């Protein structure tokens, strides 16, 4: 990534590389909230994210589809969540990892693929 592009990406978030809350996990799932959303008040990148969200997407996917690096995607997603436009779901169990019930369900799902 060239330094020019790097600087330009930070301009998208007003120079913020960190979101207001805790850093979002790269696998946190972003889901569009049902209802109206005011396209005119959102920036072009935020509007693009809302449009991408026909189905649930991870923060990593948002980053890949937008062509911005992970830190930028985190800030844009956090802003949309703070504005009530999207819901963000993180992994159950957090840093401890999934519990036994979740793992057993995963095993069933994989075996029936």
């Amino acid at each position, binding site marked *: *990534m060239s330094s020019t592009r*790097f600087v330009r990406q930070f301009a998208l978030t007003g120079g913020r590389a960190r979101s207001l809350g805790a850093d979002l*996990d*790269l*696998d*946190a*799932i972003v*889901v*569009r*909230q*049902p*209802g*109206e*959303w*005011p396209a005119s*008040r959102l920036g072009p990148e935020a509007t693009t994210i809302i449009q991408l969200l026909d189905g*649930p997407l*991870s923060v*990593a*996917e948002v*980053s*890949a*589809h937008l062509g911005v*690096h*992970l*830190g930028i*995607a985190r800030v844009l997603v956090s802003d949309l969540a703070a*504005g*009530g*436009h*999207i*819901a963000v*779901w*993180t*992994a*159950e*169990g*957090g*840093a*401890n*990892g*999934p*519990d*036994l019930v*979740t*793992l*057993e*369900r*995963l*095993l069933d*799902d*994989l*075996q029936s*693929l």
Partner: protein
Amino acid sequence: MTFSPSDATMTLGDPGRAAAPPPRAPIVRPLKIVIAGGFAAGKTTFVDAISEITPLTTEAPMTQYSVGLDNAGEVRTKTTTTVAMDFGRLTLSPSAMLYLFGTPGQDRFWFMWDELSKGAVGAVVLVDTRRLSDCFGAIDYFERRSMPYVIALNEFDGRLAHDPDDVREALAISSAIPVMSVDARERVDTKNVLIELVKLAIERRRHRVV
């Protein structure tokens, strides 16, 4: 504050009567598995074999500090590089999505591994048996963190350079860790590796004293 449909409902709500709940976005939880391995060990091929999407790439900038000596004494230099990660996705149910993240195998990307490993189901270490030493770092990393992992020997061109038992011995891997031969292009092989990993994760979880 921008418009949100739920705001109106809350302000108009009658305290004596429960208002109809506003429509909310469905809950969808992520699960993740780390796919580790040396350069060109077949990580993206492995992810692609089972992913429902063509693997995507996300980039994260990283700052490296290196300490060196010159005529003036100790100098610290700071460089910024970008780490690229390929990943794929599998929708398990309307409320659960599995992500497979391929991580760069080089030691200097450990910081990325920390983030990826946090809360992960476990890891698959993909091994090119012609370059066995490429996976030492990954194995050490997962061993130190007691993270469930399995070893998948990628059969290039249908030929396996080493027998799985020989590789287990060469890597000094405990018999509790599955070592499997796979063709990373084959979905059924990828699926079986993930199943072995989840079985191991379940076993570890059952025996963990919390």
